[in-house]
């Protein structure tokens, strides 16, 4: 059974007269796989990752999403997180007044409680995060800081991958994690993401550029245009897109429609 099965997914902005963004997405992801979705700005690729994470700013109007045998669209954002879906945000949110360690401990324990596991105490939690902080080369002082407050763009992205490593997801959604990263940060972040590459897990990367895919090599590359996946290939498709742009895919699609 596939880990994630998206069938004919339609979604629009949840507001009166909201714009249609996803117009029939079909995608199947198995455990152990890394998928990349590429596309121009406004193609709907970030919306797809947010819809999968349960963001209520979007309304699903048609189609289905099955995750690990469950109807994903029936679950709230927090239930999806506890079931193992993790969204690394394109624009991580600053939350003044809430420290990263308090927040992460609450998150980890919410998930453990959901799975009838004993909650981690302070000592066990510190042990868990120390290991992940080393992985992402993070300064320990960072845990006492308010979530993302005053962080640089690169620090915020690194924080997302750090949280991802701590939360130990089954399906990791990485939404343009590479944007705004310099090459060193990109290497650290990719190393963190690659460490999560196991036969039990799957990763869905949303990206604009091929560069990230040099570091996290995908099994499948999908091209999204106007709310639909129009072409699927292997990592060579990403290279071709980098070289030739998206226009040729658009033309090819126009011919087949």
């Amino acid at each position: 059974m596939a880990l994630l099965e998206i069938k004919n997914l339609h979604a629009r902005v949840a507001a009166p007269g909201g714009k249609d963004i996803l117009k029939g997405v079909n995608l199947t992801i198995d455990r152990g796989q890394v998928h990349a979705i590429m596309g121009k700005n406004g193609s709907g690729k970030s919306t797809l990752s947010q819809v999968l994470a349960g963001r209520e700013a979007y309304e699903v109007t048609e189609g289905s999403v099955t995750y690990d045998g469950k109807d994903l669209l029936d679950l709230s954002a927090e239930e999806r997180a506890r079931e193992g879906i993790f969204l690394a945000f394109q624009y991580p949110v600053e939350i003044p007044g809430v420290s990263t360690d308090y927040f992460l401990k609450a998150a980890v324990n919410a998930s453990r409680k959901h799975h009838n596991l004993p909650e981690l105490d302070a000592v066990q939690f510190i042990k868990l995060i120390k290991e992940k902080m080393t992985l992402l080369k993070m300064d320990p002082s960072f845990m006492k800081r308010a979530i993302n407050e005053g962080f640089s763009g690169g620090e915020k992205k690194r924080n997302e991958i750090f949280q991802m490593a701590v939360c130990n997801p089954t399906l990791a959604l990485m939404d343009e994690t590479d944007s705004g990263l310099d090459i060193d940060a990109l290497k650290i972040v990719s190393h963190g993401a690659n460490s999560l590459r196991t036969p039990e897990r799957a990763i869905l990367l949303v990206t604009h550029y091929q560069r990230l895919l040099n570091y996290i090599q995908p099994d499948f590359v999908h091209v999204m245009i106007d709310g639909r996946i129009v072409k699927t290939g292997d990592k060579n498709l990403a290279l071709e897109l980098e070289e030739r742009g998206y226009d040729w895919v658009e033309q090819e699609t126009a011919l087949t429609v």
Partner: protein
Amino acid sequence: MTQLAADRIIHPTFVPHLAKEPALGNHSWLDQLRATALARFELTGYPTRKQEEWRFTNVDAIARTRYSPAESSHNAQAIEAAMRFGFGDEALTELVFINGHYTPQLSRLGELPRGVIVAPVAESFHRPEVQANLARHADVQLNPFVAMNTGLISDGVYIHLPRNAAPAGPIHLLFVSIPTDQPTMTHPRVLVVAEENAQATIVETYAGEAAGETGGTGVYLTNAVTEIVQAPHSRIDHCKMQQELHTANHIASMNVHLGHDARFVSHSINTGGLLTRNEVGVVLAGEHADATLNGLVLMDGSRHCDNHTLLDHAAANCPSHELYKHVLADKSTGVFKGKILVRKDSQKTDSKQTSKVLLLSDEARMDSMPALEIYADDVKCTHGSTTGPVDEEQVFYLRSRGIALEAARHLMTYAFAADITRRIKVAPVRARIENFMAAQHGLPLDLRISELGGHDEGVVNA
């Protein structure tokens, strides 16, 4: 005449009430002071919403109520209240007032440094410093409630800090009201005189204890006035906790006078009361005086809280900082008016005012009004005001990590308030706010402000 009577409501029971006040010894200056203040109140009556300063706060319900003076008590209920609201060993000195009356059985004077006086004001009228300072800073002409309090002065606290004195722990003044089946009122009065280079931490708590099985309407009025007079280089850290019953009206004025290089830090925490009005006025009268006014208001139901503050920069080179935060749930209402007055010669004034409001319901309402009046030309004055609901982007971020919707909203609210509470140095005050919020918002008990991060701008260092 009839027109005047309609405009200026003075309840007929008011004047006979005065006659019942106990004699306060033979002090002609005090008799004079009270008579003048009372005459002023009789002239003005209670304020109405036609007056600019009372535009958003309607005290008609107070004006219409027949309050009688509250009786002293030290029964089991009083003892329990004193235990519950008291700081125990965490206070150096704790003076307890039940229904406005000093209750020595429940108070503890502690070990005060030589020359430091913490005493009932009723036993202090013979002191020249009291005569010299009482009612010199809280102006009976400006506020009818101050006039009423002054006209009825009978009990409260006098604190005298001699030169260089620095008591080692907080001085806690606890005013507990235990209402009966008749509406009652109290008029607590506090006077603090700090001599040169003295310093102290002073906490005023105003709390209500429900009358329990014996019944009682729960209706009462606390009308408090505090005056703080600081000589050069002195420092006062002041906290006020307003935890009145939700059936009570709480009106308070605090006036502070700062000499040069004196520093005053105030935290005003309001969680109780049906109707609350706090006026805080600070005169920065000497150069390099420094004032911080912070406030936290947590209201729900249909309760109302109004904070009027005035920072009067009457000397050059003075900084002042002000941060008020309101959390308004249900149909509660808040008012913040922050006036900064910079007089003509007060050059190099550096004043920053911020008001932040979190609205937890569509029906809650806030009126926030900065008022800058600047007559000097070389000053830095900033003010900012934000009002809005919990940020849904932030809530989604927390939920996307597995934190439940309600918990995420509570956490955001808690963090919003913690921005004030973490600045407070008095541990029992912080603990009370945490407990209140935990109960109000059903927060996990292990959530403590110390666990919450954030930058430390404006945090006062010891």
